[in-house]
């Protein structure tokens, strides 16, 4: 952990920040802030609002981790990353964790040496088309021009889908969502494809959202989740179990509203273990006993974060669908706190 002193002086100035050694937890604690990589702007998942505060579903995860580790949900530095820069930023230690709607794939996990700690959103790639086009299925899209937002697994899924169905298409890869959307609205492409959640979010910002339909085909599995570097399992555990705490909290009915009351002690031993009134779970992670309580208080449990940022009452209006609790037919499931 030796740094040259001049670099040290720069650190003071905030020019050089952060260190990446094995113990990310120590670094985060020493720094007092969590560096969390997010997108450069996708409404609902991570985007700065008018006053410059980051908000969104992925941002909620970052804040929960910061609250669990540091006890302060505002102790997060959000580092905007593009599809290109995100992996380097994480690998080089510029960020401690990446919560940037990143698909969990084999090669990213194994070849690029990252560790996906869980899934916070089950997504799939879909298509949006104008109603007047009269397309009811993605299989009718032979010869269509397709706008893609680059930087995710989108291009590959699209190529696979059209190849499997033996139909042709013309891809128009666009850097940012806003530009892809402009192309789509101007008719420069027939359909716009990206993750279904992104499509819904994009459609919500249109002048006339009703003029556009989401096609029924979901052509890929896109489990999106936070990831950390390989090799620092303690830190990986913290992020993983913070996410699990949010999920378990929803399952057990622990919300930001009733958490104060519940943390005084309940008859449910699992709630007690979660909130640190029973057992030593926080200590095992190297955190204090109230870690999960802090994480949940940061923005509520998984369901609350979902509803607040992308749920049906927001402009984005996503239904829970696959992301419902396992008890309600969804896939969101957390291992037990024991």
């Amino acid at each position, binding site marked *: 952990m030796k740094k040259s002193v001049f670099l040290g002086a720069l650190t003071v100035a905030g020019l050089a920040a952060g260190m990446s050694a094995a113990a990310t937890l120590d670094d985060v604690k020493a720094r007092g802030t969590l560096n969390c990589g997010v997108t450069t702007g996708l409404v609902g998942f991570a985007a700065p609002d008018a006053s410059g505060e980051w908000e969104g579903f992925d941002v909620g995860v970052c804040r929960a981790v910061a609250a669990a580790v540091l006890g302060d949900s505002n102790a997060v530095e959000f580092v905007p990353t593009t*599809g*290109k820069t995100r*992996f*380097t930023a994480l*690998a*080089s230690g510029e960020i401690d964790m990446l919560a940037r709607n990143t698909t969990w794939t084999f*090669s*990213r996990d194994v*070849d*690029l*040496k990252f560790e996906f700690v869980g899934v916070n959103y089950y997504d799939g790639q879909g298509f949006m088309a*104008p109603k*007047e*086009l009269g397309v009811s299925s993605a299989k009718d*899209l*032979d*010869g*269509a*021009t397709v706008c893609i937002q*680059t*930087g*995710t*697994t989108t*291009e*590959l899924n*699209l*190529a*696979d889908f*059209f*190849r499997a169905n033996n139909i042709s*298409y*013309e*891809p*128009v*890869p*666009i*850097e940012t969502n806003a*530009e892809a959307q*402009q*192309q789509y609205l*101007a*008719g*420069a*492409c*027939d359909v716009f494809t990206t993750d279904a959640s992104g499509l819904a979010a994009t459609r919500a910002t249109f002048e006339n959202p009703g003029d556009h339909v989401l096609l029924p085909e979901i052509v890929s599995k896109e489990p999106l989740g936070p990831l950390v*570097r*390989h*090799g620092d399992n303690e830190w990986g555990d913290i992020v993983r179990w913070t996410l699990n705490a949010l999920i378990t909290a929803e399952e057990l009915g622990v919300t930001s509203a009733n958490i104060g009351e519940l943390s005084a002690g309940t008859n449910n031993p699992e709630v007690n273990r979660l909130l640190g009134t029973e057992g030593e779970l926080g200590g095992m992670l190297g955190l204090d006993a109230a870690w999960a309580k802090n994480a949940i208080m940061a923005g509520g449990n998984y369901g609350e974060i979902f509803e607040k940022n992308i749920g049906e009452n927001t402009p984005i209006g996503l239904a829970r669908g696959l992301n419902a609790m396992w008890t309600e037919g969804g896939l969101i499931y957390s291992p037990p706190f024991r």
Partner: protein
Amino acid sequence: MTILTDPPKESFRLSMLLNDTRYRSLTFQVIAAIALAFSILYLANNLARNLADQGLSISFAFLGAPAGYDINQRLIEYTSQSTNLRAAFVGILNTLLVAFLACVTATIFGVLAGVLRLSKNWLVAKIMAFYVEIFRNIPVLIWIIIIFTIMTAVLPGPRAFRGDDATASMFLGVSAFTNRGIYIPGPYFTRGFGAAELGAVWDWVLVLGLLVASFFGARAVNARATRIQEATGIRPATLTTNLAIWFGPLIVVALALGLTFEIPELKGFNFKGGIKVGGPLIAIWFALSIYTGAFIAENVRAGILAVSKGQTEAAAALGIRPGRIMSLVILPQALRVIIPPLISNYLNITKNSSLAILVGYADVTATLGGITLNQTGRAIECVLLLMLFYLVISLLISGIINIYNNSVKLKER
């Protein structure tokens, strides 16, 4: 051993390394070499440690793996099953294509604007000055985005051509200008050497051969005219002969092979048939040409102004006609000033074409440095290859500049 009265012998002292000019430069160079070696070693060591920490390695094996994505514009055969290397080649060809096209049109824009800016017409001169200033002083990135946005917003989508209440119609019934690209009639031969892929190629080889033959034919005619002129002082008219040489054989072949044009037609989602020039290509092509055109205009203007007025006057005093003064006296001298910055502008076009990702054009930065990098995560390898490619292109173009500079250098005696 040395005796004081001896002439000072060439004995080497350490301080001579610094104080003796014979050795000093050697010392500095050794220091520089060592410093360089150490910094390279330091960086390489850091790299190795960083990679080892994360269990990564540098490997170019990904180039052989299937790319998995499609590219909308390809000059060579490519499918999503082709390798990343091939995707990179598709990108390289696309970069070269747009760079070449933009160099040609930027030169046209630039020469036009540069000459018109010197026009006696006040209004035209002012408009050209405005054009030059506004394009030179606003970043090319902003221009690319603005031009792409204008193109998308102003040109109609193919949907506007459809139906009874179509809001757009085809230009002269044969070409369509849409925001996905421009569709123009494509020539093909009905009685060519065969309908097969290879047969069509031979047709075009024949046409190309004819053009080359015409070129040499026309040159021979002109050379003969010059000979006659030098011998007799009268230049025979060559215009009709030249026109006949250029167009006669072409027309004959076109008729013989049955030249026909395929008219683009709206089928399904898009226009089909004919030749398509993609929207992203047009956007980046136009943006680069009009931006660099402003710089070239300044070069041209400076080149023309650099030829001193005495040259024109001297030529006039010799009785040379005004048109010939331009071509024989002014231009050759102006070109000496214009061409070196012109070629470095070509270099800039090539480098600025890396901004094509902004408009979705699949150049090498978008394929190798974009999607391949994103999908494989091999950042170091991709960026290194990308830089290597641009370096090679730039060195080639710089080589051309140097050869030209040497050939037109004022021969001083």
